[in-house]
């Protein structure tokens, strides 16, 4: 089977700081990484390939230096990598991104066989929108399976797939037909370490680089800023909260009184939680 995994190179957002005095964004030394959620998608894709045979193609849209992330994906064991890069893509929001990626996936299909499954992470850590996966599914008419925690039976002949999917309050088991788009939940499987042979191959591999035209994209008005209905008007630092915990005064109080005080403070701080706790207690 042919599997396409979409990954994104993102800044390691945990390393971004806001200067406490000047209230400015400090981006110095913030490294770029493969979106951590995408690694789980890549792992599931590789497992599926190892199970059923075939090939994994990794795709990213980004600046030329995003090649580093693709090479890393090859180190894990992906078979080929495609970088979609063009200055026309600058400023793409999720709608424009899903357009460009879906066109590239079509082109990948023409070049190396139509993909049976397209994987993405559940969301990115920089945008957190969780929207590009569904966007691609919609544009390519793939059956959409988001927040997937496990992949069950896959029947290539019958073109069916079963997955477990995180839903509100539980896990949904779904069956659908291929081709499908799957966004993968974090923590699904332990991410493998690439074998030495894969690492050596990755170090020397040629990454396929496509600009818009090479990816078969002709409608430039659907790309980049022009193709993006949303616009970021303002980026700012949140108001800091008092950093120190408010400590219960333990002097001259019995432990029982302190526990009462703590419970009262919790109920105060979280309106509605008392009712929910009661509802829960009543249920059991």
């Amino acid at each position, binding site marked *: 089977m042919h599997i396409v995994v979409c990954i994104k190179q993102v800044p*390691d957002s*945990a*390393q971004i*700081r806001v200067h406490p005095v000047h209230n400015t964004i400090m981006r110095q*030394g*913030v*490294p770029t990484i493969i979106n951590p959620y995408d690694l789980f998608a890549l792992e599931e894709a590789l497992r599926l390939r190892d199970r059923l045979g075939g090939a994994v193609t990794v795709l990213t849209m980004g600046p030329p230096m995003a090649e580093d992330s693709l090479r890393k994906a090859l180190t894990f064991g992906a078979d080929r990598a495609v970088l979609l890069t063009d200055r026309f893509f600058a400023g793409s929001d999720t709608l424009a991104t899903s357009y460009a990626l879906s066109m590239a996936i079509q082109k990948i299909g023409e070049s190396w066989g139509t993909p049976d499954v397209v994987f993405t992470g559940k969301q990115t850590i920089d945008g957190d929108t969780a929207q590009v996966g569904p966007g691609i599914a919609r544009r390519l008419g793939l059956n959409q399976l988001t927040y997937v925690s496990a992949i069950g039976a896959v029947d290539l002949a019958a073109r069916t797939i079963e997955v477990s999917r995180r839903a509100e309050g539980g896990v949904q088991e779904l069956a659908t037909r291929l081709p499908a788009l799957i966004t993968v939940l974090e923590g699904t499987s332990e991410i493998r*370490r690439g074998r030495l042979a894969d690492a050596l191959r990755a170090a020397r591999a040629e990454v396929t680089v496509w600009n818009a035209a090479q990816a078969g994209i002709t409608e430039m008005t659907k790309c980049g800023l022009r193709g993006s209905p949303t616009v970021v008007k303002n980026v700012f630092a949140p108001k800091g909260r008092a950093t120190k915990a408010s400590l219960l005064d333990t002097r001259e109080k019995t432990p029982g009184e302190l526990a009462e005080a703590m419970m009262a403070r919790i109920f105060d701080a979280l309106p509605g939680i008392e009712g929910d706790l009661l509802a829960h207690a009543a249920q059991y």
Partner: protein
Amino acid sequence: MSGTKIEEKLFQNRYLVDAGRPHIKVRAHDAPSEELRALVDICPAGCYTETDKGTVEIVADGCMECGTCRIVTQETGEIEWNYPRGGYGVLFKFG
């Protein structure tokens, strides 16, 4: 000295913790040597702590891989020190 200070400092650092595979281990012991006990004070990441039982433990998550503990306890052989697996451990942003 001030453990709090070190925690705050380490919070600025970037790590990829290899869960379940600590790269430094303290061998089981009843009473630590002076050298091992010294690590509670001198480990620059404050990784070593003394337990109620008087033994010394390590949580290596904040380790900066300097190797001081390795050098100090080389004679006593109380710790097992390895590099983390490739890609894991501290990831210096500036170095």
